[in-house]
Protein backbone atom coordinates (compact mmCIF):
# COMPACT_ATOMS: atom_id res chain seq x y z
CA UNK A 1 0.00 0.00 0.00
CA UNK A 2 1.44 3.34 -1.06
CA UNK A 3 0.79 6.71 0.56
CA UNK A 4 -1.78 7.49 -2.16
CA UNK A 5 -3.60 4.22 -1.47
CA UNK A 6 -3.50 4.89 2.27
CA UNK A 7 -5.12 8.28 1.66
CA UNK A 8 -7.86 6.60 -0.41
CA UNK A 9 -8.42 3.90 2.23
CA UNK A 10 -8.74 6.53 4.99
CA UNK A 11 -11.11 8.63 2.85
CA UNK A 12 -13.32 5.58 2.29
CA UNK A 13 -13.68 5.16 6.04
CA UNK A 14 -14.26 8.83 6.63
CA UNK A 15 -17.08 10.11 4.41
CA UNK A 16 -15.09 9.98 1.17
CA UNK A 17 -13.38 13.28 1.93
CA UNK A 18 -10.20 12.73 -0.08
CA UNK A 19 -8.81 16.23 0.50
CA UNK A 20 -9.17 15.85 4.28
CA UNK A 21 -7.50 12.41 4.29
CA UNK A 22 -4.67 13.80 2.19
CA UNK A 23 -3.98 16.67 4.61
CA UNK A 24 -4.08 14.32 7.60
CA UNK A 25 -1.78 11.65 6.17
CA UNK A 26 0.70 14.24 4.87
CA UNK A 27 0.68 16.13 8.19
CA UNK A 28 1.32 12.94 10.19
CA UNK A 29 4.44 11.96 8.24
CA UNK A 30 5.73 15.51 7.80
CA UNK A 31 5.49 16.19 11.54
CA UNK A 32 7.26 12.94 12.42
CA UNK A 33 9.94 13.78 9.86
CA UNK A 34 10.38 17.29 11.38
CA UNK A 35 10.70 15.88 14.90
CA UNK A 36 13.32 13.32 13.84
CA UNK A 37 15.24 16.04 11.99
CA UNK A 38 15.55 17.81 15.35
CA UNK A 39 16.76 14.59 16.92
CA UNK A 40 13.50 14.28 18.83
CA UNK A 41 11.99 10.89 19.65
CA UNK A 42 8.50 10.08 18.29
CA UNK A 43 6.28 7.71 20.23
CA UNK A 44 2.94 6.47 18.89
CA UNK A 45 1.30 4.28 21.52
CA UNK A 46 0.22 0.92 20.07
CA UNK A 47 2.17 1.51 16.88
CA UNK A 48 5.80 2.05 17.73
CA UNK A 49 8.51 4.60 18.37
CA UNK A 50 11.12 6.28 16.22
CA UNK A 51 14.40 7.63 17.48
CA UNK A 52 17.60 8.95 15.99
CA UNK A 53 20.62 6.79 16.70
CA UNK A 54 24.19 7.95 16.34
CA UNK A 55 26.69 5.70 14.65
CA UNK A 56 30.40 6.37 14.88
CA UNK A 57 32.75 6.35 11.92
CA UNK A 58 34.24 3.05 10.83
CA UNK A 59 36.38 1.53 8.10
CA UNK A 60 34.20 -0.65 5.91
CA UNK A 61 34.67 -2.62 2.76
CA UNK A 62 32.82 -2.60 -0.52
CA UNK A 63 31.53 -6.18 -0.56
CA UNK A 64 31.67 -6.32 -4.38
CA UNK A 65 35.18 -5.05 -4.96
CA UNK A 66 36.78 -5.58 -1.56
CA UNK A 67 37.98 -1.96 -1.58
CA UNK A 68 38.32 -0.37 1.80
CA UNK A 69 35.97 2.58 2.33
CA UNK A 70 35.79 5.05 5.16
CA UNK A 71 32.27 5.46 6.55
CA UNK A 72 31.72 8.75 8.31
CA UNK A 73 29.88 9.10 11.63
CA UNK A 74 26.17 9.42 10.94
CA UNK A 75 22.75 9.68 12.48
CA UNK A 76 20.05 7.28 11.33
CA UNK A 77 16.38 6.77 12.22
CA UNK A 78 15.54 3.63 14.18
CA UNK A 79 12.04 2.16 14.55
CA UNK A 80 10.91 -0.09 17.37
CA UNK A 81 7.54 -1.80 16.87
CA UNK A 82 5.02 -1.19 19.66
CA UNK A 83 3.62 -4.08 21.69
CA UNK A 84 0.11 -4.06 20.22
CA UNK A 85 1.29 -3.96 16.60
CA UNK A 86 4.02 -6.55 17.23
CA UNK A 87 1.39 -8.95 18.51
CA UNK A 88 -1.10 -8.20 15.75
CA UNK A 89 1.50 -8.70 12.99
CA UNK A 90 2.52 -12.06 14.47
CA UNK A 91 -1.02 -13.41 14.94
CA UNK A 92 -1.52 -16.62 12.98
CA UNK A 93 -4.89 -17.06 11.38
Amino acid at each position, binding site marked *: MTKGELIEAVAQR*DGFNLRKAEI*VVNTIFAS*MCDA*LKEGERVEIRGFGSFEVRRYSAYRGRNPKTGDEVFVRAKR*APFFKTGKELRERVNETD
Partner: protein
Amino acid sequence: MTKADIVEKVYENLGGFSKKESAEIVEMVFETIKETLERGEKIKISGFGNFVVRQKKERTGRNPQTGEEIKIAPRRVLTFKPSQVLKNSINA
Protein backbone atom coordinates in the same frame (compact mmCIF):
# COMPACT_ATOMS: atom_id res chain seq x y z
CA MET B 1 6.59 13.87 20.11
CA THR B 2 3.50 11.84 20.90
CA LYS B 3 0.20 11.23 19.14
CA ALA B 4 -1.26 14.25 20.95
CA ASP B 5 1.34 16.53 19.32
CA ILE B 6 0.51 15.06 15.92
CA VAL B 7 -3.21 15.60 16.53
CA GLU B 8 -2.45 19.26 17.35
CA LYS B 9 -0.63 19.72 14.01
CA VAL B 10 -3.44 17.97 12.12
CA TYR B 11 -6.00 20.18 13.87
CA GLU B 12 -4.09 23.31 12.78
CA ASN B 13 -3.66 22.13 9.18
CA LEU B 14 -7.23 20.88 8.70
CA GLY B 15 -9.19 23.95 9.72
CA GLY B 16 -12.93 23.61 10.31
CA PHE B 17 -12.66 20.38 12.30
CA SER B 18 -12.69 19.97 16.07
CA LYS B 19 -9.83 18.55 18.17
CA LYS B 20 -11.96 15.46 18.74
CA GLU B 21 -12.51 14.96 15.00
CA SER B 22 -8.80 15.51 14.39
CA ALA B 23 -7.91 12.88 17.00
CA GLU B 24 -10.39 10.44 15.47
CA ILE B 25 -9.01 10.71 11.95
CA VAL B 26 -5.39 10.42 13.16
CA GLU B 27 -6.43 7.24 14.98
CA MET B 28 -8.10 6.03 11.78
CA VAL B 29 -4.88 6.52 9.79
CA PHE B 30 -2.82 4.46 12.25
CA GLU B 31 -5.54 1.81 12.45
CA THR B 32 -5.64 1.52 8.64
CA ILE B 33 -1.83 1.10 8.59
CA LYS B 34 -1.98 -1.53 11.33
CA GLU B 35 -4.72 -3.52 9.58
CA THR B 36 -2.74 -3.48 6.34
CA LEU B 37 0.45 -4.71 8.04
CA GLU B 38 -1.58 -7.34 9.89
CA ARG B 39 -2.55 -8.79 6.50
CA GLY B 40 1.17 -9.03 5.71
CA GLU B 41 0.98 -6.20 3.18
CA LYS B 42 3.72 -3.56 3.21
CA ILE B 43 3.23 0.20 3.58
CA LYS B 44 5.31 2.49 1.38
CA ILE B 45 5.40 6.16 2.32
CA SER B 46 7.47 8.10 -0.20
CA GLY B 47 9.84 10.53 1.49
CA PHE B 48 9.52 8.68 4.80
CA GLY B 49 10.13 4.95 4.44
CA ASN B 50 8.70 1.46 4.05
CA PHE B 51 7.16 -0.78 6.70
CA VAL B 52 7.59 -4.43 5.75
CA VAL B 53 6.40 -7.60 7.50
CA ARG B 54 9.05 -10.32 7.43
CA GLN B 55 8.73 -14.01 8.13
CA LYS B 56 11.43 -15.28 10.52
CA LYS B 57 12.35 -18.96 10.65
CA GLU B 58 12.60 -20.97 13.85
CA ARG B 59 16.05 -20.78 15.41
CA THR B 60 17.84 -21.77 18.57
CA GLY B 61 18.76 -18.97 20.90
CA ARG B 62 20.43 -18.83 24.25
CA ASN B 63 19.51 -17.13 27.46
CA PRO B 64 22.55 -14.88 27.92
CA GLN B 65 22.18 -14.98 31.69
CA THR B 66 21.91 -18.72 32.23
CA GLY B 67 23.45 -20.03 29.00
CA GLU B 68 20.40 -22.20 28.60
CA GLU B 69 19.39 -23.06 25.03
CA ILE B 70 15.91 -22.03 23.98
CA LYS B 71 13.92 -22.57 20.82
CA ILE B 72 12.71 -19.36 19.20
CA ALA B 73 9.49 -20.08 17.33
CA PRO B 74 8.97 -18.95 13.72
CA ARG B 75 7.32 -15.56 13.75
CA ARG B 76 6.40 -12.52 11.72
CA VAL B 77 8.09 -9.24 12.57
CA LEU B 78 7.71 -5.69 11.32
CA THR B 79 10.74 -3.85 9.96
CA PHE B 80 11.09 -0.21 8.96
CA LYS B 81 13.44 0.89 6.20
CA PRO B 82 13.83 4.67 6.20
CA SER B 83 13.84 6.41 2.82
CA GLN B 84 16.98 8.09 1.51
CA VAL B 85 15.16 11.44 1.84
CA LEU B 86 14.57 10.88 5.58
CA LYS B 87 18.13 9.64 6.15
CA ASN B 88 19.55 12.67 4.37
CA SER B 89 17.40 15.17 6.23
CA ILE B 90 18.40 13.63 9.58
CA ASN B 91 22.08 14.03 8.70
CA ALA B 92 21.79 17.51 7.19
